[in-house]
């Protein structure tokens, strides 16, 4: 009888072992005072490495997971409050 194997099967989420945080030349820096909590940066991040936490009615805290951030700058572009700035990493300063 013909036996059909499963082929190459991978466990889920193994990509998490691969830290892409050192890919980029820039990293984002946020001014939490300006954040109004719209979450545009969170949903637009290709690396799923932004979290917008609500501290109280008016205050928000944006955190980046630098293990994975590739420094693309989409978060800074989409931010309506100009609260995110892209900064060149020390190693890439000329």
């Amino acid at each position: 009888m013909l036996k059909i194997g499963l082929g190459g099967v991978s466990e889920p989420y193994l990509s998490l072992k691969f830290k892409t945080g050192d890919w980029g030349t820039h990293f984002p820096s946020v001014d939490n005072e300006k954040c109004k909590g719209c979450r545009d940066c969170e949903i637009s991040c290709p690396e799923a490495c932004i979290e917008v936490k609500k501290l109280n009615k008016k205050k928000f805290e944006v955190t980046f997971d630098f293990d994975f951030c590739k420094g693309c700058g989409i978060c800074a572009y989409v931010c309506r409050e100009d609260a995110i700035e892209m900064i060149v990493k020390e190693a890439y300063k000329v």
Partner: protein
Amino acid sequence: MTYFASGHGACPGCGIPVAVRNIIDAFDGKCFVANSTGCLEIISSQYGRSAWGVPYIHSLFENPAAVAAGIESALKALGRKDEGHVLVFAGDGATADIGIGPLSGMFDRNHDVLYICLDNEAYQNTGNQQSGLTPMGCLTTTTPVGKLMPGKIRQKKDMVAIALAHKLAYVATASVAFPREVVRKAKKAVEFEGAKYLQIHSPCVTGWGITGDQSFKIAKLAFETGLYPIVEFEHGELIRVRKIKEKRPVEEYLKIQKRFRHLFTHPKGEDVIKTLQSIADENIRRYNLMGTETEV
């Protein structure tokens, strides 16, 4: 919690992971994904490096629609349809060129599948070869710019019209630069029984010759010029469009991308730009795109 994990290998600034993550997260991971060979597959499913938290199969380049049809039929036969939606993620090459036969068959048999085309306007995974969805005037490795050729000669294929010709219940376009709208459309699509088509415009940083931080801006410009109309059809009828508040000339979109820059110096460039402008104008007229209403 996301069902498409960090650590995948997409280029910085690529919009594909944004669209994919938001869609499968919107379904709370209750979906089965068939994915053709291409950028998404390469960045997320290399052996031992999977980014996926939902059932996922890498088909071949040409047959994700057939594989998805099989999954859907099996779920039906086993009485397990409630376990999730069957989705296809496929590139524009897979969709409009090599996989169009199986896609037409899947549409025709009306499998309960949401087919999502990630349209980065060329075969990007293999290094920027033209596809049927590559726009006119575009430089690719198979439409080189020389003394005679000003990039791709023919127009972008109208895949929306091809999908509509199959009398599907739901056909829409979207852009990675409007992620909330992408989610709304994916959720809307699965309310319809049968085959659905969603085409999402997604800039390619390397293939288009742009920087990662520009990708959303450029995707928005594609829409604001009229070159990439964002439309929504239910049962063949146009029910909604994203309105352009301020129309931009196509030059504004073309000049900031390496793939179109030759049009400003090539002897035939001016004619191509004129034709592209008339395509954009015709889109705006045909879909009545000008207006001020806002999308989600």
